[in-house]
């Protein structure tokens, strides 16, 4: 053993930051736009107290009160005229009864599924995967609609206050959606606190509006609107319709169905029980009851005020009923105007935030479904900031498309709305009923009664909505949901068969004897430095046969290359010139490879020199032959493509 030259002792590994690879431009833009990437450990596990949780989960639900009364009146007024104002309160009360049952039912769900509840999981656990897809798809479509409806309604609140903006409703709505999308891609953690302010601001505004309104109502000095504004929806005549005739019953049911939009968002808390402080389920239940009560008071209060002041909706949606009520209740004094502006601001904010609730729920639900292999796998991936980025983008895309198609009109979107939610209510409540029957926990009879009633009631409302709003656009949902479910099932079959094939005897396949021969082909365009890189790399491999291949597209160039090659001081590296009479180079390469693999005992590696450019516009100057060659060759079994990069403008040693 020689100790003549003292060797330097080994050193610890360099820090991880030392071998940082340069980031791509696209990544740098993303980094700037969305913030630094989050570490896996930073997955939000922060638990919310009741006040914050109410703000986070209730915005969707509470915001419905901003348009529910209006949608009821929009159905009633054209049909039965002035009598509408007598019917709006009873219909509201009927809706609130449904709401009360839903809240009772969801209290059960929260207790039974405290970790990851939601209609999808409940249905899957109790009825199996296929019914769960119905629940899932119904909810997904409704989340898309929630975004579209909330943003359109929020935009309507803006255009009610500033009428000059009315023609720009669609761009404004899209702007809102894009803003919310970016906010969500940055991550939910921040948004928890962001939620609190507008939600409570809206609640305070509504409390003030209803307080002032009720006091003035009791004092008897509330003004009553005359029904003669231009742009109002036409008033029907109540006399000829006959209030309690069959036709009117249909109108009442239709109005009730439109009011169904009010209870959407009840399920939000049951989806996120795990986000509550311990004891999670108890806190979640309390928050659910508070949310339901707040919604009930607001919805009922607005309906009472609207019915007393005879506020009718405008045909084109602006000014909204809630803004008309605000104007009438607050009067036109300086303080009144200020309060009115506050109300409009609060309404806009909460409606936009309601869209945000969908942005939390849609990606999570989609990731559940994708996890069960019923939606594309990409939806399970957490992105840059640990949120389900693909789900967020998918939701935004669908919502923007919907806003464009409907022209950001709330009343065109409302008929599509609520069917999905009530379908998922029905399935999840029925699932809960089944759960009680299976598990028989103490007190299961009471639970069964509550959830059973909830399921029957939701089903009834669902049917009413589907029937009465069918011709107004609900048919689209009735058609789309089963079609989507069929598509998802098809997708699932595909994933399952892929999985079966990939996993079939994988161990035996890995241990099989290897192919006898290995041929390495180096693609050479001309004898330049990028080809030299590929030749260098090829010489490190030890194949049975190694040769360079040049596809002849220009005889002159082929001639030059032949000259240069025969001067090359390399043994065992012949150059094959291949004729390509139809000038399809990728296809030609594929044929050369296919001739090698045809014997069945040969593994072929194709080395493709690929140039890497420092700047985007540099790569625009060249075609993407390397990629198309790789695509053509990869279709052949036992053909493997390796790109050998050549870096322009890089220091000599890293090329």
């Amino acid at each position, binding site marked *: 053993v020689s100790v003549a030259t003292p060797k330097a002792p080994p050193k610890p590994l360099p820090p991880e930051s030392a071998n940082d690879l340069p980031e791509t431009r696209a990544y740098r833009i993303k980094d700037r736009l969305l913030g630094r990437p989050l570490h896996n450990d930073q997955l939000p596990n922060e638990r919310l107290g009741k006040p914050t949780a109410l703000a986070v989960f209730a915005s969707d639900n509470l915001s419905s009160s901003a348009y529910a009364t209006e949608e009821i009146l929009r159905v009633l007024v054209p049909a039965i005229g002035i009598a509408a104002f007598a019917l709006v309160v009873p219909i509201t009360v009927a809706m609130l009864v449904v709401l009360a049952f839903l809240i009772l039912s969801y209290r059960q769900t929260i207790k039974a599924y405290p970790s990851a509840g939601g209609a999808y999981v409940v249905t899957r656990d109790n009825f199996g995967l296929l019914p769960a897809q119905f629940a899932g798809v119904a909810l997904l479509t409704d989340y898309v609609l929630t975004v579209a409806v909330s943003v359109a309604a929020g935009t309507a609140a803006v255009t009610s206050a500033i009428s000059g903006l009315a023609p720009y409703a669609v761009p404004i709505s899209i702007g809102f959606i894009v803003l919310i999308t970016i906010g969500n891609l940055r991550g939910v953690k921040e948004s928890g606190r962001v939620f609190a302010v507008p939600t409570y601001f809206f609640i305070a505004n509504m409390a003030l509006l209803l307080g002032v309104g009720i006091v003035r109502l009791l004092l008897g000095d509330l003004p009553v609107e005359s029904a003669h504004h231009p742009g109002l929806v036409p008033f029907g005549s109540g006399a000829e319709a006959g209030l309690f005739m069959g036709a009117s019953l249909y109108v009442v049911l239709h109005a009730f169905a439109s009011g169904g939009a009010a209870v959407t968002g009840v399920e939000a808390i049951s989806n996120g029980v795990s986000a509550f402080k311990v004891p999670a389920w108890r806190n979640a239940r309390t928050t659910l009851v508070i949310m339901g009560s707040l919604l009930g008071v607001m919805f009922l209060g607005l309906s009472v005020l609207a019915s007393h002041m005879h506020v009718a909706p405008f045909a084109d949606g602006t000014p909204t009923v809630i803004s008309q009520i605000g104007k009438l209740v607050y009067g036109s004094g300086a303080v009144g105007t200020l309060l009115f502006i506050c109300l409009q601001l609060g309404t806009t904010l909460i409606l936009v935030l309601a869209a945000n609730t969908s942005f939390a729920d849609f990606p999570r639900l989609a990731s559940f479904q994708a996890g069960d292999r019923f939606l594309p796998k990409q939806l399970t991936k957490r992105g840059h900031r640990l949120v389900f980025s693909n789900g967020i983008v998918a939701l935004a895309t669908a919502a923007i498309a919907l806003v464009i198609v409907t022209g950001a009109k709330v009343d065109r979107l409302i008929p599509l709305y609520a069917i999905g939610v009530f379908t998922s209510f029905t399935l999840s409540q029925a699932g809960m009923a089944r759960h009680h029957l299976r598990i028989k926990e103490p007190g299961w009879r009471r639970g069964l009664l509550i959830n059973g009633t909830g399921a029957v009631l939701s089903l009834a409302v669902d049917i009413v909505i589907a029937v009465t709003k069918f011709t107004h656009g609900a048919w689209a949902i009735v058609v789309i949901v089963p079609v989507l479910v069929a598509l998802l099932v098809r997708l699932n079959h595909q994933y399952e068969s892929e999985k079966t094939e990939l996993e079939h005897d994988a161990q035996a396949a890995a241990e099989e004897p290897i192919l006898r021969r290995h041929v390495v082909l180096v693609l050479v365009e001309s004898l330049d430095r990028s080809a030299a890189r590929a030749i260098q790399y090829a010489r490190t491999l030890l194949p049975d046969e190694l*040769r360079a291949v040049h596809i*002849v597209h220009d*005889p002159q160039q*082929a*001639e030059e290359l*032949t000259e240069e*090659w*025969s*001067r*090359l*001081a*390399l*043994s*065992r*590296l*012949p*150059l*094959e*010139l*291949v*004729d390509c*009479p*139809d000038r399809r180079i990728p*296809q030609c390469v*594929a*044929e*050369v490879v*296919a*001739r090698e*693999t*045809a014997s069945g005992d040969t593994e072929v590696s194709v080395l493709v020199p690929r140039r890497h450019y420092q700047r985007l516009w540099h790569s625009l100057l060249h075609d993407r032959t390397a990629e198309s060659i790789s695509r053509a060759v990869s*279709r*052949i*079994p036992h053909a493997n493509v390796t790109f050998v990069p050549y870096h322009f403008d890089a220091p000599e040693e890293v090329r």
Partner: protein
Amino acid sequence: MAVRLLRAHRAPTLKLVAPAVRSDVTSIAEATWRSHVTVAGRIRSVRVQPRVGVPTLECTLVDDTGGITLVFLGRRKMSGITCGRKIVAEGTVGEHHGRLAILNPMYELLGDEQDAAGQ
């Protein structure tokens, strides 16, 4: 199978060679080991060796029925033997690296008269 799949989409107009120019030309598929044949076709590929390698020029001649290797031992270059040329080759069929081949065939260029005159 892959080859067939790829072939199916090739342009059908690429007839490889004109109908037999000489009466004694046989199709490549009929060439058998140790027989003396005259075949005609298009040079699909040419293989050149670098300076250090054994000086050999190999090319693959194809017609509509198949392909055969032509080997010129001791040569780095033969005039007219370039990709896409149509030639008639004559010689005894032997074997080269496990493939059916004609060693040092006599050949005649077809088509372009000016190029042919050059040899």
